[in-house]
């Protein structure tokens, strides 16, 4: 087999492979390390961390759906200080590349999180999860509000300085994804993460009530892949120079290639890891083989390939 260069970049961060965990789908990394070496993939995107420890939503927190699942975890986590103290050192020890995902309830909280991370060394990038309710604006999700999205990213950019790449993670539950993407890029995002889960609900036919403790939940898995591919394609068409971390239902090398051809520079894998602890490594290997079969020598050659005219 010919050698394929799988390396990629997101902003000024370089990764030897384009495969990442999806935020919230790898906990602190320790649990997956039981099944493979964390340093063998592109990198770990950590669970979105908030200022304070959170216990999250009541159970049940999940429902399986056709080719997908709903979750309503509610950002359970230890809070930024414990995270920096415990999780970062572990990941560094494993020689994993780290993208830290942050989440806040106010514009200010995002900036504060960024300030805490500024002095932590060994982080490759920050993913800003703006699919959170904005407590200052009737709980309206930041990512659904162009102005609030911008302000969050602007605040993080100012705090963090010019070094660390900022990846803004957007929600697909919006009328005009491209305009939200443009807004956060103007506000200083170096890259975009697409897509977060799609809002859904399952009603339990036994109780005749919403199944999840949190009533609604986020839909993920192969069911949403066509929505994710469309989102990545649309945004890459509008801003081909902005790197995208694509995700949503990727569970094979074929799926990863589809997302990359749509315009992603890297892919995150979430739900697939629940069904298969070694999914990320399998996907990485399959992707490499597929590229080789098709005669490509580097990943870069296929990023956004689907946008080329038919004749090429």
């Amino acid at each position, binding site marked *: 087999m010919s050698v394929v260069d799988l390396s990629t970049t997101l902003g000024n961060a370089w990764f030897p492979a384009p495969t990442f965990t999806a935020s919230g789908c790898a906990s602190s990394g320790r649990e997956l390390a039981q099944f493979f070496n964390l340093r063998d993939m592109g990198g770990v995107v950590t*669970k979105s961390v908030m200022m304070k420890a959170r216990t*999250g939503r009541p159970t049940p927190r999940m429902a399986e759906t056709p080719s997908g699942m709903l979750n309503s975890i509610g950002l359970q986590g230890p809070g930024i200080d414990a995270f920096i103290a415990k999780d970062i050192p572990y990941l560094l020890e494993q020689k994993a590349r780290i993208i830290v995902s942050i989440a806040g309830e106010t514009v200010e909280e995002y900036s504060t999180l960024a300030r805490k991370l500024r002095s932590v060394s060994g982080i490759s990038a920050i993913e800003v999860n703006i699919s959170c309710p904005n407590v200052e604006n009737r709980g309206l999700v930041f990512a659904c509000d162009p102005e609030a999205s911008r302000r969050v990213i602007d605040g993080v950019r100012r705090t963090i300085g010019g070094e660390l790449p900022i990846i803004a993670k957007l929600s697909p539950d919006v009328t005009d994804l491209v305009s939200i993407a443009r807004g956060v890029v103007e506000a200083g995002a170096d890259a975009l993460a697409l897509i977060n889960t799609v809002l859904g609900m399952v009603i339990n036919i036994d109780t005749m009530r919403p199944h999840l403790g949190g009533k609604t939940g986020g839909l993920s898995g192969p069911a949403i892949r066509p929505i994710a591919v469309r989102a990545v394609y649309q945004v890459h068409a509008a801003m081909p120079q902005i790197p995208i971390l694509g995700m949503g239902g990727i569970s094979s090398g074929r799926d990863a290639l589809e997302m990359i051809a749509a315009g992603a520079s890297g892919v995150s894998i979430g739900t*697939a890891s629940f069904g298969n602890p070694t999914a990320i490594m399998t996907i990485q290997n399959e992707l490499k083989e597929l590229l080789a079969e098709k005669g490509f020598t580097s990943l870069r050659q296929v990023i956004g390939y689907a946008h080329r005219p038919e004749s090429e």
Partner: protein
Amino acid sequence: MVGLIMSSINKNAAQIRASVVSNKRVGQYHQLIINIGDLAGVCKPGNFVAINVGGENSRMVLRRAFAISRVSVSATFGGTMELIVAPHGQGSKWLCQQNEGAVLDVVVPLGKAFGIPTEPVQVLLVGGGYGSAPLFGLAETLNTRGCRVDMLLGASTASKIYAPMEGKRAVNSLRIYTEDGSMGQRGRVTEPISELIKDLNIAVIYSCGPMAMLSAIDEITRGTDVVHQCAVEESMACGIGICMTCVLPVADESGNVSMLRSCIDGPVMDGSFVQWDKVGKAL
């Protein structure tokens, strides 16, 4: 309180392709024997497995968890494990249709095992429905430690009582309760516990079954010196600690309650630390 040896988690877990050795109907359950080779040697009572269901083109994206009922090493099949599966929804029904020779994708062994007493004491095992499955393997282990093992099994009806002949050898006494009175005594399995604790001088109760049963046992043991080792069953998306769906409110020594993952900080937990009244509620 008695001391328990706790095992550390998932150190030996591996993802393997494992073939079905046999599939037999037992009452309303299916007894599946699955070849897991050398991994049988590292499975402990209370561990569980996570199995892919539905085959290659399945719309079911999540694994299903099953308690390991027993493991054994035989000359013909090498190491095998036994599962007792209730055909409930689409995933378990599919599994119950897998016959000899079918190959399954299994992650095994997972989770925290039952803690084993450091000294020979009197223990009571309480099982509800298929929850009895892991208790027979546990009984054998406890026996070899010199514990005296008594057992209570309960279910709604006779066909949901799982109590294999061989299993009974390891227990000193076995009482069965069914809600409809179709086997053993009519009533709930939790009814005689208070009395038995006193009569038999029970040091540890091991329980596995519906959450309502576990919580009822906790109420009985609360304030006593009896240790309650219960195997909980929460919906699990991943089974390996990465999704945070399977959490339960559990207090630590100083009373701080946090949401622990029942897949990795369980399924076996100390019942007195679980905040039963807060299960399914926001903290």
